[in-house]
Protein backbone atom coordinates (compact mmCIF):
# COMPACT_ATOMS: atom_id res chain seq x y z
CA UNK A 1 0.00 0.00 0.00
CA UNK A 2 1.29 3.44 -0.85
CA UNK A 3 2.11 5.50 2.20
CA UNK A 4 3.05 9.08 2.87
CA UNK A 5 5.49 9.96 5.59
CA UNK A 6 4.66 13.17 7.40
CA UNK A 7 7.84 14.41 9.06
CA UNK A 8 7.52 15.59 12.65
CA UNK A 9 10.01 17.35 14.88
CA UNK A 10 10.80 14.54 17.30
CA UNK A 11 10.06 10.93 18.16
CA UNK A 12 7.80 12.22 20.94
CA UNK A 13 5.69 14.02 18.36
CA UNK A 14 5.74 10.94 16.13
CA UNK A 15 4.26 8.94 19.00
CA UNK A 16 1.76 11.71 19.71
CA UNK A 17 0.82 11.74 16.03
CA UNK A 18 -0.01 8.02 16.11
CA UNK A 19 -2.10 8.59 19.23
CA UNK A 20 -4.01 11.49 17.65
CA UNK A 21 -4.64 9.66 14.39
CA UNK A 22 -5.83 6.53 16.18
CA UNK A 23 -8.73 8.53 17.61
CA UNK A 24 -9.85 9.22 14.03
CA UNK A 25 -9.30 5.66 12.81
CA UNK A 26 -6.25 6.53 10.75
CA UNK A 27 -3.47 4.02 11.16
CA UNK A 28 -0.05 5.61 11.54
CA UNK A 29 3.33 4.06 12.23
CA UNK A 30 6.38 5.71 13.69
CA UNK A 31 9.34 5.65 11.35
CA UNK A 32 12.74 7.14 11.01
CA UNK A 33 12.93 9.57 8.07
CA UNK A 34 14.52 7.68 5.19
CA UNK A 35 15.44 10.85 3.38
CA UNK A 36 17.57 13.68 4.61
CA UNK A 37 15.56 16.38 6.37
CA UNK A 38 16.53 20.01 6.82
CA UNK A 39 18.71 19.44 9.88
CA UNK A 40 19.77 15.93 9.00
CA UNK A 41 17.65 13.31 10.65
CA UNK A 42 14.33 12.87 12.25
CA UNK A 43 11.12 10.98 12.58
CA UNK A 44 7.88 10.75 10.69
CA UNK A 45 4.50 9.17 10.93
CA UNK A 46 3.63 7.00 7.93
CA UNK A 47 -0.05 7.02 6.98
CA UNK A 48 -2.02 5.57 4.05
CA UNK A 49 -1.54 7.94 1.11
CA UNK A 50 -5.28 8.37 0.57
CA UNK A 51 -5.69 9.64 4.13
CA UNK A 52 -2.57 11.78 4.27
CA UNK A 53 -4.20 15.15 3.73
CA UNK A 54 -6.79 14.47 6.40
CA UNK A 55 -4.07 13.17 8.67
CA UNK A 56 -1.94 16.26 8.19
CA UNK A 57 -4.83 18.54 9.07
CA UNK A 58 -5.59 16.52 12.19
CA UNK A 59 -2.00 16.67 13.32
CA UNK A 60 -1.87 20.43 12.93
CA UNK A 61 -5.15 20.92 14.78
CA UNK A 62 -4.01 18.69 17.64
CA UNK A 63 -0.71 20.39 18.37
CA UNK A 64 1.60 17.86 16.74
CA UNK A 65 4.69 19.75 15.62
CA UNK A 66 5.26 18.85 11.97
CA UNK A 67 8.23 20.06 9.94
CA UNK A 68 6.24 20.60 6.75
CA UNK A 69 8.24 17.92 4.91
CA UNK A 70 6.71 14.85 3.29
CA UNK A 71 7.86 11.93 1.26
CA UNK A 72 6.18 8.91 -0.18
CA UNK A 73 6.74 5.20 0.28
CA UNK A 74 5.35 2.63 -2.09
Amino acid at each position, binding site marked *: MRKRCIAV*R*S*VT*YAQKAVEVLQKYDIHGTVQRNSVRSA*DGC*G*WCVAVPFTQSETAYGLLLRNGV*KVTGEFYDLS
Partner: protein
Amino acid sequence: MIYLDNAASSHPKPPEVIRAVERQLRRNGANPGRSGHRLSAEGARVIYDARRILADGFGTDSELVIFTSNTTDAINRALKGVLNAGDHVVISDLEHNSVLRPLKAMEPLGVTFSVAQTKSNDEEALHSFQEAIRPNTRLIFCTHASNVTGRILPIRQIADLCRERGILFGVDGAQTAGLEDIDLKRDGIDLLCIPGHKSLLGPQGTGALLLGSPLELTTMTQGGTGTESLSEYQPSLLPDAHESGTMNTPGIAGLAAGTRFAMEHRDAIRSHEAELRAMFCEELKSVSGFRLVTVGESFVPTLSLIPESVHSEAVTQYLDRCGICTRGGYHCSALAHRTLKTEECGTVRISFGYRNTEEDVEECIKYLKKYLNNSGRA
Protein backbone atom coordinates in the same frame (compact mmCIF):
# COMPACT_ATOMS: atom_id res chain seq x y z
CA MET B 1 12.41 -6.05 58.82
CA ILE B 2 9.99 -3.14 59.10
CA TYR B 3 10.57 -0.36 56.57
CA LEU B 4 9.43 3.07 57.74
CA ASP B 5 11.59 5.25 55.49
CA ASN B 6 9.26 5.68 52.51
CA ALA B 7 9.87 9.42 52.44
CA ALA B 8 13.42 8.61 51.32
CA SER B 9 12.38 5.93 48.83
CA SER B 10 9.40 3.60 48.75
CA HIS B 11 9.92 -0.06 49.51
CA PRO B 12 8.90 -2.66 48.56
CA LYS B 13 7.81 -1.94 45.00
CA PRO B 14 4.74 -3.56 43.46
CA PRO B 15 5.60 -6.74 41.52
CA GLU B 16 4.34 -5.03 38.33
CA VAL B 17 7.17 -2.50 38.62
CA ILE B 18 9.85 -5.14 39.02
CA ARG B 19 8.40 -7.10 36.09
CA ALA B 20 8.34 -4.00 33.88
CA VAL B 21 11.99 -3.21 34.56
CA GLU B 22 13.07 -6.81 34.11
CA ARG B 23 11.06 -7.17 30.90
CA GLN B 24 12.62 -4.06 29.41
CA LEU B 25 16.13 -5.16 30.34
CA ARG B 26 15.55 -8.65 29.02
CA ARG B 27 13.68 -7.84 25.81
CA ASN B 28 15.03 -4.56 24.55
CA GLY B 29 18.37 -2.98 25.23
CA ALA B 30 18.19 -0.77 22.14
CA ASN B 31 18.64 2.98 22.46
CA PRO B 32 15.11 4.42 22.28
CA GLY B 33 14.31 6.91 19.55
CA ARG B 34 17.72 6.96 17.94
CA SER B 35 17.96 4.27 15.26
CA GLY B 36 15.23 3.48 12.79
CA HIS B 37 14.94 -0.22 13.61
CA ARG B 38 11.97 -1.71 15.35
CA LEU B 39 13.70 -2.17 18.70
CA SER B 40 14.60 1.52 18.86
CA ALA B 41 11.07 2.50 17.87
CA GLU B 42 9.64 0.09 20.44
CA GLY B 43 11.85 1.64 23.11
CA ALA B 44 10.60 5.07 22.12
CA ARG B 45 7.05 3.80 22.49
CA VAL B 46 7.78 2.64 26.04
CA ILE B 47 9.11 6.13 26.84
CA TYR B 48 6.10 7.82 25.23
CA ASP B 49 3.63 5.59 27.10
CA ALA B 50 5.27 6.65 30.36
CA ARG B 51 5.02 10.30 29.32
CA ARG B 52 1.36 9.84 28.56
CA ILE B 53 0.69 8.14 31.92
CA LEU B 54 2.41 10.95 33.82
CA ALA B 55 0.76 13.66 31.70
CA ASP B 56 -2.70 12.18 32.32
CA GLY B 57 -1.94 11.65 36.00
CA PHE B 58 -0.84 15.25 36.59
CA GLY B 59 -3.06 17.19 34.18
CA THR B 60 -0.69 18.27 31.44
CA ASP B 61 0.33 17.35 27.88
CA SER B 62 2.73 14.53 27.03
CA GLU B 63 5.32 16.79 25.44
CA LEU B 64 5.47 18.85 28.65
CA VAL B 65 6.83 15.89 30.63
CA ILE B 66 10.62 16.02 30.88
CA PHE B 67 12.20 12.88 32.33
CA THR B 68 14.92 13.45 34.91
CA SER B 69 16.96 11.21 37.16
CA ASN B 70 15.19 12.31 40.37
CA THR B 71 13.49 15.32 41.99
CA THR B 72 16.77 17.10 42.65
CA ASP B 73 17.62 16.92 38.95
CA ALA B 74 14.14 18.22 38.10
CA ILE B 75 14.40 21.09 40.60
CA ASN B 76 17.80 22.11 39.29
CA ARG B 77 16.46 22.13 35.74
CA ALA B 78 13.46 24.17 36.84
CA LEU B 79 15.37 26.78 38.83
CA LYS B 80 18.32 27.13 36.46
CA GLY B 81 16.01 26.98 33.48
CA VAL B 82 13.80 29.82 34.59
CA LEU B 83 15.96 32.21 36.59
CA ASN B 84 18.31 34.88 35.30
CA ALA B 85 20.49 37.53 36.91
CA GLY B 86 18.32 40.08 38.70
CA ASP B 87 15.50 37.62 39.38
CA HIS B 88 14.13 37.06 42.87
CA VAL B 89 12.56 33.84 44.17
CA VAL B 90 10.44 33.14 47.24
CA ILE B 91 10.77 29.75 48.92
CA SER B 92 9.42 28.36 52.18
CA ASP B 93 11.26 27.71 55.43
CA LEU B 94 10.74 23.96 55.00
CA GLU B 95 12.59 23.48 51.72
CA HIS B 96 14.85 20.56 50.96
CA ASN B 97 18.51 21.29 50.15
CA SER B 98 17.71 20.49 46.51
CA VAL B 99 15.96 23.88 46.43
CA LEU B 100 18.21 25.84 48.81
CA ARG B 101 21.59 24.74 47.43
CA PRO B 102 20.97 25.58 43.76
CA LEU B 103 19.69 29.01 44.82
CA LYS B 104 22.77 29.57 46.99
CA ALA B 105 24.90 28.56 44.00
CA MET B 106 23.06 31.10 41.84
CA GLU B 107 23.52 34.01 44.26
CA PRO B 108 26.93 34.98 42.81
CA LEU B 109 25.18 35.03 39.41
CA GLY B 110 22.75 37.70 40.61
CA VAL B 111 19.73 35.60 41.64
CA THR B 112 18.31 36.47 45.06
CA PHE B 113 15.79 34.66 47.23
CA SER B 114 13.67 35.21 50.32
CA VAL B 115 12.38 32.61 52.76
CA ALA B 116 8.69 32.80 53.68
CA GLN B 117 7.82 31.57 57.17
CA THR B 118 5.24 28.79 57.09
CA LYS B 119 4.35 29.46 60.77
CA SER B 120 1.57 27.43 62.36
CA ASN B 121 -1.26 27.53 59.85
CA ASP B 122 -1.96 27.95 56.15
CA GLU B 123 -3.34 31.47 56.42
CA GLU B 124 -0.22 32.74 58.13
CA ALA B 125 1.96 30.86 55.65
CA LEU B 126 0.14 32.43 52.70
CA HIS B 127 0.47 35.89 54.20
CA SER B 128 4.18 35.33 54.65
CA PHE B 129 4.58 34.37 50.99
CA GLN B 130 2.65 37.48 50.00
CA GLU B 131 4.86 39.72 52.15
CA ALA B 132 8.02 38.23 50.65
CA ILE B 133 7.13 39.16 47.05
CA ARG B 134 9.20 41.95 45.49
CA PRO B 135 8.88 43.83 42.18
CA ASN B 136 11.52 41.52 40.67
CA THR B 137 10.08 38.27 42.02
CA ARG B 138 9.98 35.91 39.05
CA LEU B 139 9.12 32.67 40.82
CA ILE B 140 7.64 31.25 43.98
CA PHE B 141 8.98 27.75 44.51
CA CYS B 142 7.89 25.65 47.45
CA THR B 143 7.51 22.14 48.67
CA HIS B 144 4.05 20.61 48.52
CA ALA B 145 4.81 18.70 51.73
CA SER B 146 7.79 18.82 54.05
CA ASN B 147 10.03 15.78 53.89
CA VAL B 148 10.77 16.29 57.60
CA THR B 149 7.40 16.97 59.23
CA GLY B 150 4.99 15.85 56.54
CA ARG B 151 3.18 19.18 56.66
CA ILE B 152 1.23 19.95 53.46
CA LEU B 153 1.43 23.55 52.29
CA PRO B 154 -1.53 25.38 50.67
CA ILE B 155 -0.21 25.23 47.12
CA ARG B 156 -3.52 26.06 45.40
CA GLN B 157 -3.78 29.32 47.34
CA ILE B 158 -0.12 30.07 46.64
CA ALA B 159 -0.77 29.38 42.95
CA ASP B 160 -3.68 31.86 43.03
CA LEU B 161 -1.36 34.44 44.57
CA CYS B 162 1.19 33.83 41.80
CA ARG B 163 -1.43 34.16 39.10
CA GLU B 164 -2.61 37.50 40.54
CA ARG B 165 0.94 38.83 40.54
CA GLY B 166 2.08 37.35 37.22
CA ILE B 167 4.69 35.20 38.95
CA LEU B 168 5.67 31.66 37.97
CA PHE B 169 4.86 28.92 40.46
CA GLY B 170 7.03 25.87 40.97
CA VAL B 171 6.32 22.95 43.30
CA ASP B 172 8.55 20.30 44.80
CA GLY B 173 6.21 17.32 44.67
CA ALA B 174 8.70 14.84 46.11
CA GLN B 175 6.49 13.85 49.04
CA THR B 176 3.09 14.14 47.35
CA ALA B 177 3.36 12.89 43.74
CA GLY B 178 1.31 9.72 43.60
CA LEU B 179 -0.35 10.41 46.93
CA GLU B 180 -2.17 13.76 46.64
CA ASP B 181 -4.35 14.88 43.74
CA ILE B 182 -2.17 17.28 41.73
CA ASP B 183 -3.31 18.73 38.41
CA LEU B 184 -0.98 21.30 36.90
CA LYS B 185 -3.58 23.05 34.76
CA ARG B 186 -6.33 23.01 37.39
CA ASP B 187 -4.02 23.99 40.25
CA GLY B 188 -2.12 26.72 38.40
CA ILE B 189 1.30 25.06 38.71
CA ASP B 190 3.88 26.07 36.12
CA LEU B 191 6.64 23.64 37.12
CA LEU B 192 6.19 20.41 39.08
CA CYS B 193 9.24 18.40 40.13
CA ILE B 194 8.64 14.79 41.07
CA PRO B 195 10.54 11.61 41.88
CA GLY B 196 9.71 8.28 40.37
CA HIS B 197 10.88 6.33 43.37
CA LYS B 198 8.70 7.50 46.24
CA SER B 199 4.87 7.42 46.12
CA LEU B 200 4.85 6.73 42.38
CA LEU B 201 6.47 3.42 43.42
CA GLY B 202 8.93 3.38 40.51
CA PRO B 203 12.65 2.61 40.58
CA GLN B 204 15.37 4.95 41.79
CA GLY B 205 17.04 6.93 39.02
CA THR B 206 13.72 8.23 37.70
CA GLY B 207 11.84 11.47 38.05
CA ALA B 208 10.28 14.21 35.97
CA LEU B 209 9.87 17.92 35.53
CA LEU B 210 6.33 18.60 34.35
CA LEU B 211 5.28 21.91 32.87
CA GLY B 212 1.81 23.41 33.00
CA SER B 213 2.33 25.08 29.63
CA PRO B 214 5.19 25.38 27.11
CA LEU B 215 7.86 27.37 28.97
CA GLU B 216 11.17 28.47 27.61
CA LEU B 217 13.76 27.00 29.94
CA THR B 218 17.49 27.39 29.58
CA THR B 219 18.90 23.91 28.97
CA MET B 220 21.29 22.47 31.52
CA THR B 221 22.81 19.85 29.29
CA GLN B 222 23.24 19.77 25.56
CA GLY B 223 23.97 16.81 23.35
CA GLY B 224 22.39 14.19 21.15
CA THR B 225 18.62 14.11 20.99
CA GLY B 226 18.00 11.76 18.06
CA THR B 227 16.79 14.50 15.73
CA GLU B 228 18.29 17.41 13.77
CA SER B 229 21.68 15.74 14.12
CA LEU B 230 23.32 17.98 11.53
CA SER B 231 22.48 21.07 13.53
CA GLU B 232 25.24 22.26 15.84
CA TYR B 233 22.67 23.66 18.22
CA GLN B 234 20.47 22.07 20.85
CA PRO B 235 16.89 21.76 19.58
CA SER B 236 14.52 24.08 21.39
CA LEU B 237 11.60 21.68 21.15
CA LEU B 238 10.07 20.26 24.34
CA PRO B 239 10.87 17.79 25.78
CA ASP B 240 13.91 16.97 23.61
CA ALA B 241 15.70 20.17 24.55
CA HIS B 242 16.07 18.85 28.09
CA GLU B 243 16.59 15.15 27.42
CA SER B 244 19.98 14.86 25.79
CA GLY B 245 21.68 11.49 25.84
CA THR B 246 20.37 7.98 26.32
CA MET B 247 17.26 7.70 28.45
CA ASN B 248 16.88 5.31 31.36
CA THR B 249 14.40 3.11 29.50
CA PRO B 250 14.19 0.25 32.03
CA GLY B 251 13.72 2.81 34.81
CA ILE B 252 11.07 4.68 32.87
CA ALA B 253 9.27 1.42 32.09
CA GLY B 254 9.21 0.74 35.82
CA LEU B 255 8.06 4.29 36.50
CA ALA B 256 5.13 3.83 34.12
CA ALA B 257 4.09 0.64 35.88
CA GLY B 258 4.47 2.24 39.30
CA THR B 259 2.52 5.34 38.32
CA ARG B 260 -0.29 3.22 36.90
CA PHE B 261 -0.47 1.26 40.17
CA ALA B 262 -0.21 4.35 42.38
CA MET B 263 -2.87 6.30 40.49
CA GLU B 264 -5.25 3.35 40.42
CA HIS B 265 -4.97 2.82 44.17
CA ARG B 266 -4.18 6.38 45.24
CA ASP B 267 -7.23 7.06 47.38
CA ALA B 268 -6.99 3.73 49.18
CA ILE B 269 -3.25 4.10 49.74
CA ARG B 270 -3.60 7.65 51.03
CA SER B 271 -6.37 6.62 53.39
CA HIS B 272 -4.42 3.58 54.65
CA GLU B 273 -1.23 5.54 55.24
CA ALA B 274 -3.12 8.38 56.94
CA GLU B 275 -4.69 5.85 59.32
CA LEU B 276 -1.27 4.47 60.19
CA ARG B 277 0.01 7.99 60.87
CA ALA B 278 -2.98 8.74 63.08
CA MET B 279 -2.56 5.44 64.92
CA PHE B 280 1.12 6.14 65.52
CA CYS B 281 0.40 9.65 66.84
CA GLU B 282 -2.19 8.21 69.22
CA GLU B 283 0.09 5.41 70.47
CA LEU B 284 2.92 7.89 70.91
CA LYS B 285 0.97 9.56 73.70
CA SER B 286 1.98 6.63 75.92
CA VAL B 287 5.67 7.24 75.18
CA SER B 288 7.46 10.01 77.03
CA GLY B 289 10.86 11.08 75.82
CA PHE B 290 9.81 12.00 72.29
CA ARG B 291 7.95 15.08 71.12
CA LEU B 292 5.89 14.89 67.95
CA VAL B 293 6.17 17.83 65.53
CA THR B 294 2.57 18.90 65.01
CA VAL B 295 2.87 22.30 63.32
CA GLY B 296 0.51 22.45 60.37
CA GLU B 297 -3.06 21.70 59.32
CA SER B 298 -2.72 18.63 57.12
CA PHE B 299 -0.01 16.05 56.61
CA VAL B 300 1.28 13.32 54.34
CA PRO B 301 2.10 10.01 56.16
CA THR B 302 5.46 11.26 57.39
CA LEU B 303 6.16 12.51 60.88
CA SER B 304 9.11 13.64 62.94
CA LEU B 305 9.88 12.94 66.57
CA ILE B 306 12.17 15.20 68.54
CA PRO B 307 14.06 13.10 71.10
CA GLU B 308 14.77 14.58 74.49
CA SER B 309 18.45 14.64 75.51
CA VAL B 310 19.82 12.33 72.82
CA HIS B 311 20.71 12.69 69.16
CA SER B 312 18.14 11.32 66.74
CA GLU B 313 20.75 9.17 64.99
CA ALA B 314 21.29 7.23 68.22
CA VAL B 315 17.60 6.38 68.24
CA THR B 316 17.47 5.34 64.59
CA GLN B 317 20.58 3.21 64.98
CA TYR B 318 18.91 1.39 67.85
CA LEU B 319 15.73 0.93 65.81
CA ASP B 320 17.83 -0.44 62.94
CA ARG B 321 19.34 -3.04 65.26
CA CYS B 322 15.78 -4.01 66.15
CA GLY B 323 14.93 -4.42 62.48
CA ILE B 324 13.12 -1.11 61.95
CA CYS B 325 14.30 1.25 59.19
CA THR B 326 13.79 4.94 59.93
CA ARG B 327 15.85 8.07 59.29
CA GLY B 328 17.46 10.31 61.86
CA GLY B 329 19.49 13.46 61.55
CA TYR B 330 18.67 16.36 59.27
CA HIS B 331 17.04 14.83 56.19
CA CYS B 332 18.92 17.03 53.71
CA SER B 333 16.86 19.97 54.94
CA ALA B 334 18.87 22.67 56.69
CA LEU B 335 15.97 25.12 56.47
CA ALA B 336 13.40 22.77 58.02
CA HIS B 337 15.60 21.95 60.99
CA ARG B 338 16.44 25.60 61.48
CA THR B 339 12.70 26.33 61.51
CA LEU B 340 12.02 23.49 63.95
CA LYS B 341 15.03 24.49 66.08
CA THR B 342 16.28 20.91 65.92
CA GLU B 343 19.78 21.62 64.66
CA GLU B 344 21.24 20.11 67.81
CA CYS B 345 19.60 16.70 67.76
CA GLY B 346 17.79 16.36 64.44
CA THR B 347 14.60 14.34 64.36
CA VAL B 348 13.58 10.71 64.04
CA ARG B 349 11.55 10.61 60.86
CA ILE B 350 8.99 7.87 60.35
CA SER B 351 7.29 7.61 56.98
CA PHE B 352 4.68 5.01 56.12
CA GLY B 353 4.16 3.20 52.84
CA TYR B 354 1.38 1.25 51.25
CA ARG B 355 2.69 -2.08 52.56
CA ASN B 356 3.02 -0.99 56.20
CA THR B 357 0.57 -2.37 58.73
CA GLU B 358 -0.82 -1.62 62.17
CA GLU B 359 1.55 -4.27 63.52
CA ASP B 360 4.47 -2.21 62.16
CA VAL B 361 3.20 0.81 64.11
CA GLU B 362 2.89 -1.26 67.29
CA GLU B 363 6.39 -2.69 66.89
CA CYS B 364 7.92 0.72 66.36
CA ILE B 365 6.21 2.12 69.44
CA LYS B 366 7.30 -0.92 71.45
CA TYR B 367 10.95 -0.40 70.51
CA LEU B 368 10.82 3.33 71.14
CA LYS B 369 9.63 2.52 74.66
CA LYS B 370 12.36 -0.12 75.02
CA TYR B 371 14.98 2.39 73.89
CA LEU B 372 13.92 4.79 76.58
CA ASN B 373 13.85 2.03 79.22
CA ASN B 374 17.28 0.75 78.22
CA SER B 375 18.80 4.18 78.32
CA GLY B 376 17.11 5.08 81.60
CA ARG B 377 15.12 7.84 79.98
CA ALA B 378 11.64 6.34 80.39
